[in-house]
């Protein structure tokens, strides 16, 4: 009898095998899709950028301090300096406030307070950026004038303030995750030695969560570098080279970032002209290179400061 009912282990029904193969294929396609899209974007960007560099020498592009398409001047430096200025100023706002908010949420807030504040911060992250830009133009700039700052109608300062506020939730939420995952036993050790809550937060929790906190900075900065609508609406459309002889003027006056120039080029009659249109791709690949390098640095830093807790 036992030989009759011996299970067949030599092969499965063909339908089952085919279905497994199908699933495998579908999942592979989904995983490969994002990689394929990224690669094709890079290839297309590079191809058109090469076309641009055939018309405009790379040295004129990378070292030029003026970007006036109608005059055939395509220097990217004023756009890079505009982007860096916005990034640095917004980081000055978002990093301290974001980390302090994360410390509050992770170490000080009661359960109930956290239940109110965390969703509140996440709503901040859900506001469309064009609304931030509009807010900067219509409310922040007039408010800065009330404070006595001689800002232009379109200016770097209000745009950077709003970019900073926009990225606070990224810093605070990722930093809070990192701080919350610091084991409670370390806090208890601190309290047991007579440390105050502030001591425990600053000398135990923050150092132990440093790699996560740094990662949140880099992600937030990448977001600030790539931010487009706020700066396109509130900062103006004229590229300004960083003027080191009068530092304040850089902030109070207008300027333009790489992203906002790209938006402008796409939406203007320049889209027809050859070099003007193709400058879009040269700026795009420069921006891509910058964010790519930022990501590499972020990975390095995260690995360098990764602390094990136990």
């Amino acid at each position, binding site marked *: 009898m036992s030989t009759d009912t011996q299970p067949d282990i030599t092969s499965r029904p063909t339908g089952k095998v085919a279905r497994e193969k199908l699933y495998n294929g579908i999942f592979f396609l989904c995983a490969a899709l994002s990689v394929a899209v990224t690669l094709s974007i890079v290839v297309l960007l590079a191809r058109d950028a090469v076309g641009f560099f055939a018309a405009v020498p790379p040295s004129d592009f990378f070292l030029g301090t003026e970007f006036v398409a109608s005059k055939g001047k395509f220097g990217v430096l004023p756009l890079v300096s505009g982007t860096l200025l916005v990034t640095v100023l917004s980081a000055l706002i978002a990093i301290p406030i974001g980390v302090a908010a994360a410390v509050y949420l992770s170490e000080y807030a009661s359960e109930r307070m956290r239940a109110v504040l965390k969703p509140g911060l996440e709503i901040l992250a859900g506001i469309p950026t064009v609304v931030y830009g509009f807010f900067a133009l219509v409310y922040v700039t007039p408010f800065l004038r009330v404070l006595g700052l001689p800002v232009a109608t379109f200016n770097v300062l209000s745009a950077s303030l709003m970019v900073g506020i926009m990225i606070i939730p990224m810093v605070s939420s990722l930093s809070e995750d990192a701080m919350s995952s610091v084991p409670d036993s*370390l806090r*208890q050790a601190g309290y047991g030695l*007579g440390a105050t809550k502030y001591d425990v937060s600053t000398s135990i929790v923050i150092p132990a969560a440093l790699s996560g906190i740094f990662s949140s900075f880099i992600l937030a900065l990448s977001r600030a570098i790539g931010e487009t609508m706020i700066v396109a609406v509130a900062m103006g459309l004229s590229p300004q080279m960083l003027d080191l002889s009068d530092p304040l003027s850089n902030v109070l006056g207008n300027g333009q970032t790489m992203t906002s120039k790209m938006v402008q080029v796409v939406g203007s009659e320049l889209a027809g002209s050859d070099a003007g249109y193709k400058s879009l791709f040269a700026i795009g690949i420069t921006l891509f290179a910058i964010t790519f390098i930022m990501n590499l640095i972020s990975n390095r830093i995260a690995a360098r400061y990764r602390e094990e807790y*136990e």
Partner: protein
Amino acid sequence: MTQDEMTDTNDGTDPTANAAADTPDPSGDPLVDQSIDVEGTSTTEQTSGTARTVLESRNLDVYYDDVQALNDVSLAIPAKQVTAMIGPSGCGKSTFLRCINRMNDLIDSARVDGELRFEGKDVYDDDVDPVALRRRIGMVFQHPNPFPKSIYDNVAYGLRVQNQTENMDEKVERALKHAALWDEVKDQLDKSALDLSGGQQQRLCIARAIAVDPEVILMDEPASALDPIATSKIEDLIDDLAEDYTVVIVTHNMQQAARISDKTAVFLTGGELVEFDDTNKIFENPENQRVEDYITGKFG
């Protein structure tokens, strides 16, 4: 191995011998004298055996939300001796320990009724600052929990937060020597504490606790995560520490309590203190039938 080692350790830490060694001079330490002056002398006449009482609970109840974790606990802990708290899991022995330095404050649902006096002062009075209290009552936890910092910075941490930064190198060295760790780590003080073995980490945690020179050291099952050799080192160390400090230790290992403690408190389920007496009395001739059943392994 255990049989031999246990016997060895037992010889070294005979509770009676230890108690006798302590008797002649219970208050010779200037720190203790000073604290009596500061805190008053209300409980100093009450002695437990021959030593002065440092900690005393009266009718202590603790609740976590509606669950009662300690039920009407009254006991007096003598200075410069080792007092062990034993009992089955969930009997409230750790809760009692964490009441002493108010670590239960960190748990929102915990509520404490009754009195817990440290040098005569109720630590749950409104004017007591738990941070200041914990500077005089150090704690060592169940799992070694060194900070992810260097060995030196771990020991120096308490000194830094308490602003006792003068002669820091000397204090760090003294604490490490006292914790019997100095010879193993003196050449690698700037190495990460996480590179040490579990037993070394726990001795580091003890060094960290004694660096700030507290009066009392609370230990919450300090050897339960360690292997037998590391455990016996910790036990020897506890014996040494009792010369300078009042040690209160929670353990679920009855042999350990018998080896190292002078006094033993037996908690049984429901957070009830069933018997508190000299350790040899508890283990050789307990008054309470339930304690005898527990000690002899009939339950728990």
